[in-house]
């Protein structure tokens, strides 16, 4: 049993290091495999590398696969950790198209598939529309990638009521366009946008709250979690922010009549 497990683990690592076209019968590698890291990624995707580096890209291994006249471009990117990989996936998925529960998540459109599992972000581009082939590849790849298929914990903290499906994404810096909110998650709701940011300590979170009050101006205190305030901002609309321990969260873009504090409190309730 131990030998089998070790062999499976070795196969999984091998796939992440050298993506294999032979996962589906009839497909073979075409040309040399490719490998890029943070310093030369621009040679492969000149003009878009920074979009990967933002999510702590470590390296990419890829290969082109061929079956008859059809070609697939298969790339596996290793990101800094599972959270960064999810962030990369979420920023690249089409929010108008449903995701599928393959690995952590996958999205398949007629000529493109993306998958996230653990710290790996997988992209497959197709020379023609063949979603079923892409789906089969994604399923086969998912089995060969080691690690967790659980989404980042923060995703479960957003209340499901009125949540726009597939809208939760990780923002690598400047959440809501505010530099003090360094990194976190945002989610679209019918009637507002929610966010959650984890600070290092409750004290540093309290400091950020003070900066936010000063920045936004005209705030009124509200009783939500450890502390909270509401305000109306020209660009963020009607908002309510709170701090719960080292977490900062809240809603923006709330409707005029909405009970901002109650809506924010619901979000705070879910934060572990």
């Amino acid at each position: 049993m131990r030998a089998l497990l070790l062999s499976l683990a070795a196969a999984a690592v091998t796939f992440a290091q050298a993506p294999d076209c032979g996962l589906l019968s009839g497909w073979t590698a075409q040309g040399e495999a490719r490998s890029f890291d943070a310093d030369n990624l621009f040679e492969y995707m000149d003009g878009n590398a920074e979009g990967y580096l933002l999510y702590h890209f470590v390296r990419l291994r890829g290969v082109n696969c061929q079956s008859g006249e059809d070609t697939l471009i298969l790339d596996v990117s290793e990101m800094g950790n599972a959270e960064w990989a999810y962030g990369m996936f979420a920023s690249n998925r089409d929010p108008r198209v449903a995701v599928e529960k393959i690995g952590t998540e996958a999205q398949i459109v007629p000529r493109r598939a993306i998958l996230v599992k653990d710290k790996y972000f997988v992209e497959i581009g197709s020379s023609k529309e063949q979603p079923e082939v892409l789906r089969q590849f994604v399923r086969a790849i998912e089995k060969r990638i080691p690690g967790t298929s659980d989404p980042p914990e923060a995703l479960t903290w957003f209340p499901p009521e009125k949540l726009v499906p597939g809208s939760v994404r990780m923002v690598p810096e400047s959440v809501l366009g505010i530099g003090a909110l360094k990194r976190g998650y945002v989610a679209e709701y019918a009637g507002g946008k929610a966010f959650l940011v984890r600070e290092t300590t409750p004290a540093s979170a309290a400091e950020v709250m003070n900066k936010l009050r000063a920045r936004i101006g005209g705030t009124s205190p509200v009783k939500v979690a450890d502390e909270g305030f509401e305000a109306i901002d020209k660009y963020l609309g009607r908002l309510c922010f709170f701090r719960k321990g080292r977490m900062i969260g809240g809603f923006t873009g709330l409707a005029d009549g909405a009970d901002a504090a109650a809506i924010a409190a619901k979000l705070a309730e879910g934060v572990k």
Partner: protein
Amino acid sequence: MPASPSAAPVATDQLTFRTLGKTGLKVTSVGFGCMITSDASVIARAADSGINYFDTARVYQGGNNERMVGAALKGKRQQLYISTKTGAQDKAGALAHLDTSLKELGTDHVDIWYLHGKQTAAQLTDDLLEAQQIAKQAGKIRFAGVSLHTGHKEVIPAAIRSGKIDVILISYNFTMGTTVDELVAKAKAAGLGVVAMKVMAGGFRRMKEGDPNGAILKREGAMAAALRWVLKNPDIGTTIPSMTDMDQFEDNFRCMPAKFSPEDEKTLAAHLERISPVYCRMCSLCAGTCRKGLPVSDLLRIVTYADGYGQFALGRERYRELPDDVTSVRCGDCSSCTVECPHGVHVARRISFAQEIFG
């Protein structure tokens, strides 16, 4: 409750404009690179403040970036110039990209449509140039452009020679010194508009957390100095620094009327002094100059993994992927080094170090 701005107001009388070559477009000298912006509010505020040039690309954020830019600028289109890019390899693919871009941006035309990330003259194919002409005739684009991060010496002359490119979008920053100024001047003289990107040397964002250079660069003044360095070149039509938040926007906005000062010069010189012995600009001017045939820039990059980013294992892995006839060479066997880095990198010392730690 009265609405308050989430940021300090900026003085719109500080806007400065330049003409983008023969296009005649009067653009603010600081534009907006939307590539990594994740919140539409920053783009909307920049537009409200008078910034009038916004740049995106089909490929950014898997296509989501164009949609966000379109939403942020909705209702303001007539006062603004928007550029996007295609990385397609052929005419049909490029034109299909353009139609998608227009749909996502919510506009019937873009002002500049770039061929994205060309590194060689050969990549400016007749097919792609024809796609731009077709798009122009159809009224879907006003001007044709090409963007390049490397290969300035080859691609800029090719763009001029083609007679079909109106604007070039180039990486241009203080770490490059005056190495491409002549090419920029030639492009401007030929009537091309020149847009500068990577104006803060890209490396600011690429630095790993904890890198001491990052802290130095990010301290007040360093990034603004880098932007003012670019703006001091009158041949640059506009710049597109990436911006993710209101603070960055305000800092960049204030650079427009400001002059590059001796203080800026000192800040950037100090930074260059720090990085010069080790920082490879990937200009490729050293290619082919090692008498032993070593791939100099690759080796410099690999050794930086170990001592720059603290990723020894990755550096060693990359080193071991090099062919035997490279890894078997020892710099110490040569009495003198034939490689001279124009930017002052201590090449022999750095590569010897790589051989010592990885070999």
